């Protein structure tokens, strides 16, 4: 096997040992998990945090005055502080726990959109968006008579910044843009977009579902108004996510859902709402998963995001070269500036066939439209096969993918 030097001190094999699932076999072969952009696997520290909570201090938070409630509340709020540091927010009041990126975007579209959008106002998104950053805006636009504008992409799936600049106007009230494309991996020029939008008084939400695990995120430097991401794509549990919002913006927004926790005082003549961030956290939150999310963020910070990024970049570079050597294979979104996601098609072979035949070799990739049907339509393809890499992936696994694809070609040839 060709060797590519991984940086010193980064022992991939001890890292793999931290992920119990990587020991398992699929169809009698060692699991090669390359579907990390869909969800990453979880290290033992995250799994342990979940079981420790349930077996040690399960209680409802914020209300109880008993010991368990205090311990659970402390752990829950500790995650909020860890998230604040992880994304460089100025205050924990700006960190709202959600079910995931999708809920974060829906919260903003629904709460901010309903209070602020008027007939003829414009919302800008891009062709690269995941359905979760399209549909909530379509819904609120239809309700308020606002117009959804879509920034086009190049043949390689790159955001066309000039077209965006031309779209911007006094009518633009909101821009919601994916940071890194889940389907292709391409990274958007979010800083430029945020600055240009702000110059015209529009607010900006960044969908960080893919970027939060790969790129250094500092919401204050980015100066975005909202940043949404999911726990399960950054080695954390499913069902938990984060919505960051600037304090002043959040304060001016009406609550998203009503219920317990989000209120100050309830009477039948009227209700006053709790302060930030609780105003947006109605009902008993997903306590266990929030607590375990801290373990995931600590895991990433412990290794250092730059080490992760460097390792993933080595994998991406190696995989790109190896895959390109396969006759008939075309990488979609073959550009320099991207996260560790490779989307590809093989001439004459349906992505679904690739997925099924790789699965029989123990290799997990994602096939299909990746919840980005408008993007696939723009690129003129029904879908792709996508391999996406995480901290625990190895060069040997990429070799297994290449070998697997050659077998697929032989079987379908």
């Amino acid at each position: 096997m060709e060797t590519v030097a991984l940086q010193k001190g980064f022992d991939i094999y001890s890292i793999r040992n931290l992920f119990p699932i990587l020991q398992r076999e699929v169809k009698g072969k060692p699991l090669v998990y390359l579907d990390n952009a869909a969800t990453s696997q979880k290290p033992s520290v995250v799994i342990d945090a979940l079981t420790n909570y349930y077996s040690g201090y399960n209680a409802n938070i914020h209300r109880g005055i008993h010991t368990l409630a205090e311990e659970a509340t402390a752990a829950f709020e500790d995650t909020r502080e860890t998230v604040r540091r992880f994304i460089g927010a100025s205050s924990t009041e700006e960190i709202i726990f959600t079910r995931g990126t999708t809920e974060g975007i829906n919260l903003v579209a629904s709460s901010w959109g309903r209070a602020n959008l008027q007939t003829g106002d414009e919302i800008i998104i891009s062709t690269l968006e995941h359905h979760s950053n399209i549909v909530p805006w379509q819904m609120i636009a239809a309700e308020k008579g606002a117009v959804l504008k879509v920034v086009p992409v190049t043949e390689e799936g790159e955001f066309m910044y000039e077209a965006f600049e031309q779209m911007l106007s006094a009518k633009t009230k909101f821009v919601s843009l994916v940071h890194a494309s889940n389907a292709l991996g391409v990274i958007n020029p979010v800083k430029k977009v945020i600055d240009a939008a702000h110059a015209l008084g529009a607010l900006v939400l960044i969908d960080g579902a893919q970027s939060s695990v790969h790129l250094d995120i500092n919401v204050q430097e980015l100066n975005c108004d909202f940043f949404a991401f999911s726990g399960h794509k950054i080695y954390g549990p499913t069902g938990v996510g984060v919505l960051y919002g600037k304090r002043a913006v959040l304060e001016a927004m009406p609550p998203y859902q009503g219920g317990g926790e989000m209120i100050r005082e309830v009477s039948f003549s009227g209700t006053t709402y709790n302060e930030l961030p609780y105003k947006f956290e109605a009902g008993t939150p997903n306590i266990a998963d929030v607590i375990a999310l801290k373990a995931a963020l600590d895991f990433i910070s412990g290794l250092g995001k730059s080490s992760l990024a460097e390792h993933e970049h080595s994998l991406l570079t190696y995989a790109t070269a190896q895959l390109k050597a396969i006759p008939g294979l075309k990488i979609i979104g073959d550009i320099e500036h991207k996260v560790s996601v490779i989307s590809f098609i093989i001439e004459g072979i349906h992505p679904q066939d690739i997925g099924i035949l790789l699965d029989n070799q123990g290799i997990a990739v994602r096939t299909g439209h990746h919840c980005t049907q408008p993007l696939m339509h723009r690129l003129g393809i029904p879908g792709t096969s996508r391999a996406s890499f995480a901290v625990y992936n190895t060069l040997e696994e990429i070799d297994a993918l290449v070998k697997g694809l050659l077998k697929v070609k032989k079987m379908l040839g």
Partner: protein
Amino acid sequence: MTDTPTIKAIEEEIIEEFSLFDNWEDKYEYLIDMGKKLPKLDDAHKKDENKIRGCQSTVWMVSEYKNGRIFYKADSDAMIVKGLISMLIRVFSGQKPADIVSADMKFIDTIGMSTHLAQTRSNGLRSMIKQMKLDAMVWASKENN
């Protein structure tokens, strides 16, 4: 006129054919081969109303009713799905509506293809069987009227 073998008899044939293979490659190569042998579906039938929902790949299917029996034709843009549907057509085409509706399809598990029945959006086998049985029900109700 020769008798059409029963659904059970055809299933037994398929089980026997698959029992010859001891590895996944041979099974899938056989399936792919069945897909390649699937009679061509007229392009005129490849329209939206003949598409089966619930598949990652596109599957078109049409059925017709002749002398108390149903005949299916189908195509797909993915080869393994084409193989699966070719197998289903072999089992169901030329059968009586009531027999199609009541078929238990356990042979799919026996030949080791039950993974394609999994309830994920990417696997269309379940949707294909459902559509074939629905067509059979529709023909059966027309038959009774």
